[in-house]
């Protein structure tokens, strides 16, 4: 198989041609509406599989010499290639994409081995292999990856699943936010972060909300961290003015142009990280960044360079890993049906994103979610949550009753977290588990205990 464009494969009487590497990648990707919207998807089922067959024979190292987004134009490409660790890559440098899939599923690929390999992998290599993997392959390979991060607790240990407590309110009302925080804590959620999406972008309002959440954490000595999910420039300004910020949030994407659409550069992300680290608010570690991503964001910003949305999503993880984040999650179904049409596409994308992020060494969580104009419902979310938890997802969202009354979409709930813990025996971050038991919120088995009005959290709320 030629490792140069155009890429060709003959099946029976027909020869399929792919003009360049990004064309091959886009045609090989499992069907989704966003790639059709971009006009880059395979035009038939056979063309899709022909591209997969062609891609499987491609040497992995092709991705080191052929950039999908030009090096000269894009700082994300420069980051990926300049940071590539050739020594780490040496172990798999002789493999094709198909051979790499076989390796990942073999007993040779151990947890320690995959952790050592991560700096040698580029997002394009990881995206390529994911395109020829079935859902069960994505689950099994991701489960081998162990990524542990720390701030005030330890996230990502094998056998654990963390939950972001998401206490959003349509008017940023402090009493309403506090009520949702209490509800989540009493359901045993919040070890990943207590993370609020505010409506407002006013510094005064955001600082009040940061003080509110920090006050709860300090008062009850909760081993967790807080985050206000606002633009990184706003977080930097809040820190400059002395607001108590634990984690710095930012949405990131896989191209420089898409990141510019978000109003960020790599230099700005570094500035935010260094400002948060300088506050030294972590007690057991200094992973201070929280990133969100999602397939389709680059196309949505008109910044996709003709590259398929799943590959661009993996490139966003290369941006994230440069800043040693505590948490990264794909917001998989939020963007809408023009990018991920239905439950089947959302489920596939969630498993791909989790696999790619984990293989690249990130603490990948997932906002298992959908909007009301997508062909999806709670049953699809149950399916994806269950699959991701078996794959070892780092964390999921906890939204009261799965209904986010501010962002108007459906995610996973506090009850969903209890369901998956009980089904699979998954624990919380160990420090948080100890706290819940000490507070009488959960028993030694981690199950929630019935509460009375004498519960200290309830007493403290009056």
């Amino acid at each position, binding site marked *: 198989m030629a490792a140069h464009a155009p890429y060709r494969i003959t099946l029976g009487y027909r020869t399929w041609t792919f003009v360049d590497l990004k064309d091959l990648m886009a045609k090989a990707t499992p069907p989704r*509406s966003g790639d*059709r*919207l971009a006009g880059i998807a395979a035009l038939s089922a056979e063309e899709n599989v022909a591209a997969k067959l062609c891609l499987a024979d491609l040497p992995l190292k092709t991705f080191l010499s052929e950039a999908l987004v030009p090096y000269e134009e894009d700082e994300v490409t420069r980051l990926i290639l300049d940071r590539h660790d050739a020594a780490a890559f040496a172990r798999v440098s002789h493999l094709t994409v198909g051979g790499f899939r076989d390796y990942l599923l073999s007993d040779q690929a151990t947890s320690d081995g995959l952790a050592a390999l991560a700096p040698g992998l580029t997002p394009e290599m990881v995206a390529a292999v994911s395109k020829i993997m079935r859902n069960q392959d994505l689950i099994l390979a991701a489960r081998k990856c162990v990524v542990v991060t720390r701030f005030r607790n330890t996230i990502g240990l094998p056998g654990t699943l963390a939950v972001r407590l998401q*206490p*959003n*309110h*349509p008017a940023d*009302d402090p*009493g*309403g*936010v*506090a*009520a*949702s925080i*209490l*509800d989540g804590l*009493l359901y045993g959620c919040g070890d990943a972060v207590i993370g609020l999406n505010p409506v407002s972008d006013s510094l005064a309002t955001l600082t009040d909300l940061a003080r509110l959440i920090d006050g709860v954490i300090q008062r009850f000595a909760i081993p967790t961290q807080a985050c206000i999910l606002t633009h990184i420039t706003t977080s930097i300004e809040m820190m400059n003015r002395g607001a108590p910020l634990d984690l710095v949030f930012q949405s990131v994407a896989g191209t420089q142009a898409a990141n510019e659409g978000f109003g960020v550069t790599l230099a700005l992300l570094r500035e935010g990280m260094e400002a948060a680290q300088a506050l030294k608010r972590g007690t057991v570690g200094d992973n201070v960044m929280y990133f969100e991503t999602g397939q389709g964001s680059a196309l949505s910003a008109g910044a996709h360079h003709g590259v398929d949305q799943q590959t661009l999503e993996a490139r966003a993880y290369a941006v994230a890993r440069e800043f040693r984040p505590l948490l990264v999650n794909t917001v998989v179904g939020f963007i809408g*049906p*023009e990018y991920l*049409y239905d439950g089947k596409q959302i489920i596939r994308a969630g498993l791909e994103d989790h696999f790619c992020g984990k293989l690249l060494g990130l603490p990948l969580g997932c906002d298992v979610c959908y*909007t*009301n*104009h997508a062909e999806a*419902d*709670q049953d699809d979310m149950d399916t994806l949550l269950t699959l991701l938890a078996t794959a070892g997802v780092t964390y999921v969202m906890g*939204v*009261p*009753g*799965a*209904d986010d*009354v501010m962002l*108007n*979409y*459906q995610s996973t*709930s506090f*009850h969903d977290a*209890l*369901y998956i*813990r*009980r089904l699979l025996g998954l624990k919380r971050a160990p420090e948080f588990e100890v706290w819940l038991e000490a507070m009488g919120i959960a028993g030694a088995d981690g*199950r*929630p205990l*019935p*509460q*009375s*009005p004498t*519960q200290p959290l*309830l007493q403290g*709320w009056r």
Partner: protein
Amino acid sequence: MTDEPRKAGVTPDAWVHLSRATPARIALGRAGDSLPTVEVLRFALAHAQARDAVHTRFDAGALAARLGGLGLVPVLVHSAAPDRATYLARPDLGRQLAPASQQALAALPASDPDLALVVADGLSATAVHRQALPLLTAFLPWVRQAGWRLGPVAVASQARVALGDRVGQALGARAVAVLIGERPGLSAPDSLGVYLTLNPRPGRLDAERNCLSNIREGGLAHDLAAFKLAWLLREALRRQMTGVALKDESDLLLVDGRAPALPAAPMTERQET
């Protein structure tokens, strides 16, 4: 069904009183570790209503007839998205006019109005069915008072906001207001949005529009929305701008949170409501 068998096995939460503080679904109780039956079904109903709002057929003909009753001149147009499935997957097609609609608009006599109105299904025909008439009924007296010339009202099917740019351009309008069904949430499947754009033409950015959202029962009231739209249009025409540069300061004119009363209009009352 009595309460006893319904609640058997349900552990109630001791903080139900806090649910007054937020519309979020807190203190739901649990059956084992799972949602109680009543909450599972309450959620399913809200989702069903939101789904139905997305897929309810837009009754453009009936709406056009009622707009005619307000003294407006309706014209039916369709986007380049032939059906709902295409509309949802191809937002680009929802922003373009079908060729027949393009021709229909071009065939209208030139009027160069101050304002072109577009009533569009968007993501919730239910919202348009419920909110468009009351909003326009409240808005027309402001139009008469200001002496603005209105063009025909386009009743647009399978339409996105930017379709209004094409309609406004075809009519030679100074500004276009698109009344459109918003993406339904679980708590509100029938919320209407209004997007005002000066000098409409294809390629206008979202940052060049002003938006009023959440127009519904329990949201932004019709008379208040009408007052705000009139304020925005007056300022847009006077300052020759819409979008992020034009901040909605109409709240400064409110009396106890309500729209000020109209001065007695010199025009005749509307023909029917």
